[in-house]
């Protein structure tokens, strides 16, 4: 990997970086769409590439089950198998193992689970995870970590955090001896739960191993914890991670989360959200998300967003047409997936341009005022951005500020529970 910082925001910790991998350049910060089963839902790789997307994610757990390593090896790796010519990242498989398999037991050796094929006890060790990721051949591979839910408390969190460090060492040893470092880049995953001391401990240990890892992911978050705790953990990690390594925040996909993370110094994020929500008829826009199943869109002949350069909006696909076809026709899911992926890419691309031109704080303000049309900003966003010198409510008095702050996810969403949704 060649990693170069191109520009920095003079206010926040945001930065623009150029990451060169075996399958081309990816500019950071970026959002990575998820192709769990080696396909971005309904799209062809050519379509995804033409959207200006240069880095996608495959899930190791799923690809190991199907098509299986034999097939991937014969195909010459996951790139060739799915026809994807650009950069690819795989996770370790550990997270899915814990969340999708009922009988996982974690031992020092690895994660013990019952095989989904025949129920026989099977062990996923750190070495095995790296070996599988070698067969898949992704440009960025992740260490196996000991995953605990971010809501877990007590000694298990410390155990998992320390074990993740030991497993990182095993991954490094295995990966180094494989001779694949020139084409595949190992990322560490910082654990430590929601406990600042444990986070620091894990961070310190992992940063010590910096020379053997190409980048760092921030793990153990996005599992339902308070947003206020979430951003503080991200901030704590980005403050201490080495400058000259990319930072990857796992499982982040909402626009406001992405921009806050970028402001805190995160370079990469992934989430199934934009593709998943597309299948249920939701289009993401800079003015909030549209639920195209709602009756209000049934006669609207305008596109989702006339400014949007995606193939769906460019040919003026109307909201009414999408309303007519969503949840009935796969082509409607394709149309919305194309749009949502472009929305994520625009959000991050515009952030890159803003950072480069050193007007990122203004970009944040413009985004929030457009996205939260009622003027109510989530409190955690205001606080998180305030911590890096951007006051979204600049110039307002104490009283006025309170009126503009709210808990929860915030506005910008059309709820499907709206009684008209199924009409």
């Amino acid at each position, binding site marked *: 990997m060649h990693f170069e910082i191109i520009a920095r925001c003079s206010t926040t910790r945001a930065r623009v970086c150029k990451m060169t991998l075996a*399958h*081309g*350049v990816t*500019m950071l910060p970026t959002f990575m769409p998820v192709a769990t*089963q*080696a*396909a971005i*839902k*309904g*799209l*062809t*790789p*050519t*379509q995804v*590439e*033409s959207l*200006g997307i*240069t880095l996608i994610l495959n899930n190791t757990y*799923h690809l190991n089950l*199907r*098509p299986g390593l034999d*097939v991937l090896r*014969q*195909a010459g790796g996951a790139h060739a*198998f*799915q*026809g994807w010519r*650009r950069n690819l990242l795989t996770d370790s498989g550990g997270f899915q193992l814990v969340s999708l398999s009922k009988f996982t037991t974690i031992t020092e050796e690895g994660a013990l689970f019952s095989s989904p094929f025949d129920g026989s006890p099977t062990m996923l060790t750190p070495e095995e995870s790296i070996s599988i990721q070698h067969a898949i051949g992704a440009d960025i591979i992740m260490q196996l970590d000991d995953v605990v839910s971010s809501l877990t408390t007590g000694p298990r969190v410390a155990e998992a955090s320390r074990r993740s460090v030991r497993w990182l060492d095993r991954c490094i040893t295995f990966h180094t001896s494989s001779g694949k470092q020139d084409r595949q880049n190992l990322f560490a995953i910082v654990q430590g739960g929601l406990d600042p001391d444990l986070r620091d401990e894990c961070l310190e240990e992992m940063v010590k191993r910096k020379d053997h890892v190409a980048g760092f992911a921030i793990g153990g978050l996005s599992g339902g914890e308070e947003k206020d705790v979430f951003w503080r953990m991200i901030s704590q990690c980005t403050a201490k991670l080495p400058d000259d390594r990319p930072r990857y925040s796992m499982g982040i996909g909402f626009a406001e989360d992405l921009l806050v993370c970028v402001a805190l110094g995160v370079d990469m994020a992934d989430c199934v959200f934009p593709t*998943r*929500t597309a*299948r249920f008829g*939701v289009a993401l826009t800079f003015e909030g998300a549209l*639920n195209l199943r709602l009756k209000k869109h*049934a*006669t609207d*002949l305008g596109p989702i967003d006339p400014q949007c350069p995606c*193939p*769906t909006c460019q*040919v*003026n*696909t109307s909201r*009414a*047409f999408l*309303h*007519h*076809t969503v*949840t*009935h*026709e*796969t*082509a409607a*899911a*394709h*149309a919305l997936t194309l749009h949502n992926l472009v929305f994520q*890419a625009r959000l991050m*691309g515009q952030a890159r*341009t803003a950072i*480069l*031109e050193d007007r990122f704080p203004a970009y944040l303000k413009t985004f929030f005022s457009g996205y939260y049309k009622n003027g109510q900003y989530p409190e955690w966003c205001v606080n998180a951005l305030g911590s890096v010198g951007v006051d979204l409510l600049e110039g307002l008095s104490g009283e006025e500020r309170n009126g503009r702050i709210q808990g929860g996810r915030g506005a910008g969403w059309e709820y*499907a529970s709206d009684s008209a949704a199924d009409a």
Partner: protein
Amino acid sequence: MASISFSLASSSANKSKFTPRLGQLTFRHGQSPSQTLDTPGFLATTSRGVVSHLSRDHLHNTASVQWIHVPFESFLENKPPVLTRSTGPNPAHSFLGFSTEKHLVSLSVRDPSDCAEIPPNGKDFVSARCVQGVRKVTVQDWKSYAAACKPDIIFAMSDTMISAPPYSQKRITKSIERSCAWLLDILAPVSSAPPNVFVHLAGGSSVPARQTFSRTLTEKVYGKEAELVHPLECLDDGVSGYVFDLAPMRAQIGASDPYAQGKRTGEAVIELIQASLDPLPDNKIRLANSAATPHEVLRLTAGVGIDIFDSHWAQKAANIGIGLNFTFPPPSTATAGKRQDLGLNLYNNTYTHDFSTLSGEDSPHCPCLTCSPAPASSFIAHATLDEPTFAGPDFPAPKGFSRAYIHHLLHTHEMSAHTLLVLHNLAVLDQFFTDIRRMLGGGDEQQFHRAAESFCQYYDEDLAVFQEATIMWDMVDKARGKGRLMRDKPDDV
């Protein structure tokens, strides 16, 4: 709306009425360059106005699709139907995302492949189906929808008998009378009638009834009717093409096995179509909906000179995981024993490790986006600095998707499988018609008949591979949950 003309090749004119024929359909929208569609050829069918599984960019890059047929009934769930709200010179094209440069769009009230029970039609309405149930479409409704949507071609409403036979003489007579009256209604007054009206040739499974209907079309109109359709001499003068809906025809004949229908009803269907065409002029397009197999396409081309077939069966094959790979003429003459399948059932585990493309290594090159994907022609730049993103190492030209990959997508319930299969199947169908035309153009009609005969001997028309794929499709569907789109629970948004 396009201006359309149809002409038969000189080699096909002045021949017997029921021989295979070559023709050319020319159409043009406004100032767009004029397009030609060679016949015999095909049209693509739609579901809710969509060529299933194709995004608009894929549809536009699929050269084989020139004519798209839209059954209107799915739009009946709202009043007024949303398609009629579209505006501009080509409202249906613009709402549905079809290209006026490339696509000819036709509209019928009902989906011609749907033969499920439905309440009977009335004196001035057709019963049609939408997701919310059955809707009545009157002649006036249909005229207003046609005026609002401005499709290039509109099918006059027809009183098709869908309930199980036998039909009383009275019912057959009523069907003919209504179909004639509804045709007259859409043609009158001629000054405001849609320019390209196709008529479904009525008469059910009765040879005399079919002859009667067709004769009525060509009879000189008198009195009030003549006034209504002035200056037309007869109804047929206002008609641009003839439609045969094979699905209800098969039901009327009484064949029950969907996989044997094509074969079993071949002769009977041909006799009925001949009865309809006999009194009519030769120079109009003959369209057959819902041919079930390429065998049936060949028989109808050979036996009654059908010009356009829909691709419903090939599109449906993509839904159940079939990648077509038949050729015309067949690769060799049949030998005794098992007949060859028309396509590959990609659910089958024999493809797990098969890295060849759908068309295979030794078959002729398949131009579809699945077998021969094109590199992205442009990239969206999202930031001022994005330019280096698009350069970089020399990216290898994309390779065709393998059978192993499509097999994987089918078993993991990924929508992309069907996209890749539709793209390919439409290309195979296009090649099939190209080969038919080439052989007919050779001038030796007997050669065509021999090739058609050996095709029917070589390829299995019982579609055993389709049945097998349907079972496997069903198994994956059950194992994976509720269908492609609704597999996961909706987000809480």
